[in-house]
């Protein structure tokens, strides 16, 4: 079980971005983390994976634990070795390396080059498109293929928890559902626990077991995914619907938001 308890993150020693986030991710589940731009979703993931230093961020309070191990103030490579691997937002494939080299680099912590090579077949079975392009430079793949490569690369590290940051970003709807299907399969067949950060709340809640809604560095709502989908606030606010499948105009959403912010 991955657990965050009252986590506070400060950027540049002044800007408090996470204001006490607590959440629980039971092993074997998919947990969605929803919210708007700047709500603190990515920061939450980076706090877990230890990748805040590049952004001059720092966890100043709270506990982050995976099973019995504390992940706070640990180096990113220690955290990966514990089985917690983040797939960064914007794919971030190694553009100048081949698809296969990308995957092999993903297996860095998992063992020798030979053992990594023997695992390529498993990755290609999940992502047949990557098998076709194994010798191509990753920078020349399409966006969807790059996202698949980013996930496949992380899989090579033998994750028990995968932190997925906006895998749907900039992808066509067909690809989004293809990728989400694969994520669901990985969860079901390989038992990978998934923390899924998404702006595409609809897609995320379809595969998630549980969801959290972040706003301005705080968790404002949580619940089982199907409950969240029926929740009126979420439906209006994140799924853009009001009533039964009727689209709401942007102006109403804005007023609603403003009211909500004032009422706290």
């Amino acid at each position, binding site marked *: 079980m991955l657990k965050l308890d009252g986590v506070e993150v400060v950027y540049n020693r002044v800007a408090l971005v996470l204001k006490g986030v607590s959440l629980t991710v039971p092993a074997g589940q998919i947990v969605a983390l929803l919210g708007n731009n700047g709500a603190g979703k990515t920061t939450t993931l980076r706090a877990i*994976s230890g*990748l805040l*230093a*590049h952004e*001059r961020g720092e966890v100043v309070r709270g506990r982050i634990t995976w099973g019995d191990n504390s992940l706070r103030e640990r*180096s*990113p*490579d220690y*955290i*990966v*070795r514990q089985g917690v*691997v*983040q*797939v*960064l937002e914007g794919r*971030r*494939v*190694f*553009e*100048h*390396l081949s698809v296969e*080299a*990308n995957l*092999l*680099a*993903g297996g*860095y*912590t998992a063992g*020798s*080059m030979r053992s*990594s090579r023997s695992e390529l077949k498993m990755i290609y079975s999940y992502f047949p498109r990557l098998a076709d392009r194994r010798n191509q*430079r990753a*920078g*020349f793949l*399409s966006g969807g293929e790059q996202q698949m490569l980013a996930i496949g*690369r*992380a899989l*090579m*590290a033998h994750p028990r928890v995968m932190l997925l940051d906006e895998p749907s970003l900039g992808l066509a709807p067909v690809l989004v559902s293809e990728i989400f299907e694969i994520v669901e399969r990985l969860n079901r067949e390989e038992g990978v626990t998934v923390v899924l950060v998404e702006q595409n709340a609809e897609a995320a809640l379809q595969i998630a077991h549980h969801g959290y809604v972040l706003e301005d560095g705080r968790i404002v709502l949580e619940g089982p995914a199907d409950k969240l989908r029926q929740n009126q606030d979420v439906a209006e606010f994140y799924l853009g619907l009001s009533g039964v499948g009727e689209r709401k105009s942007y102006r109403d959403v804005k007023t609603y938001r403003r009211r909500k912010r004032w009422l706290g």
Partner: protein
Amino acid sequence: MSEFTQLMVSGVFTGMLYALLALGFVVVVKGSGVINFSQGEVVVLGAFVVSWLLTDVGVPFWLGVPATVVVMMVVGAGIERFALRPLQNESMLALVMATIALGSIIRGLVPMIWGDGLRSIPSLIDQRRYEWFGISIPTITFWSAVMVLILLVAFGFFFSRSRLGLAMQAVSDDRVAAQSLGINIRLVNAVSWAMAGGIAALAGYVWGSLLGVDSRLVVLGALIFPVVILGGLESILGAVIGGIVVGLVESFSAGYLNDDLGAGFSTVAPLIMLLLVLFVRPYGLFGRPEIERV
């Protein structure tokens, strides 16, 4: 015609020695992404260490050169640990300025330790020259070129086949992504600087043998840039090709143009070529343009 062949052959061989200078630079870019302006000074340090070991301490050649390689690897790793790691989350500009400062420090330190007289390196293969078909090449140049080729193959294998080599390439491509996969950035940075130090030791030995060891060797540092700009900042094969091109330009301009343009022209010619290349291809002849899909 025979003058032409002679100039070409000696250009190619000297070019291999330029490649050796540039190799240390390339390895650092590959492994840590840092543009290192102090590689020339590190080479000078290597030259002083090897000449000190071989003449003052009197260590035999077969022990002295490997010992210098080890010492310089430690120096390289030390530079990474104490000068660059504290800056690891700072901007590239800060890192580059740090390497420039480092260069000045080494330049000042060397005469403080060893004085500023000209030293020599007792050569195993003295000053003879090989003569083939009327073409003559200093023995030291020939064997150094052979060594560069061996290094080239070894590094090629290391970067494409080994786990650490692949991790180094990953780090130079995207540091954060590499870290997200558990690649230990500190280890990779330290290894690349240690490799650069070891290469600098070899370069110091070779160039010190050719030109004599004194602090004026730092001018070699300036020649790293035409080589790597031509060859691409992080291509090992590119460094060799760039080195050969620079060697040829220098050799031909020395042979044909120095009489008309003054004796120093051959030294400047590679730098003029650097400028011209930058006008046409800002990322170098073999460098990688940033991949952008449209």
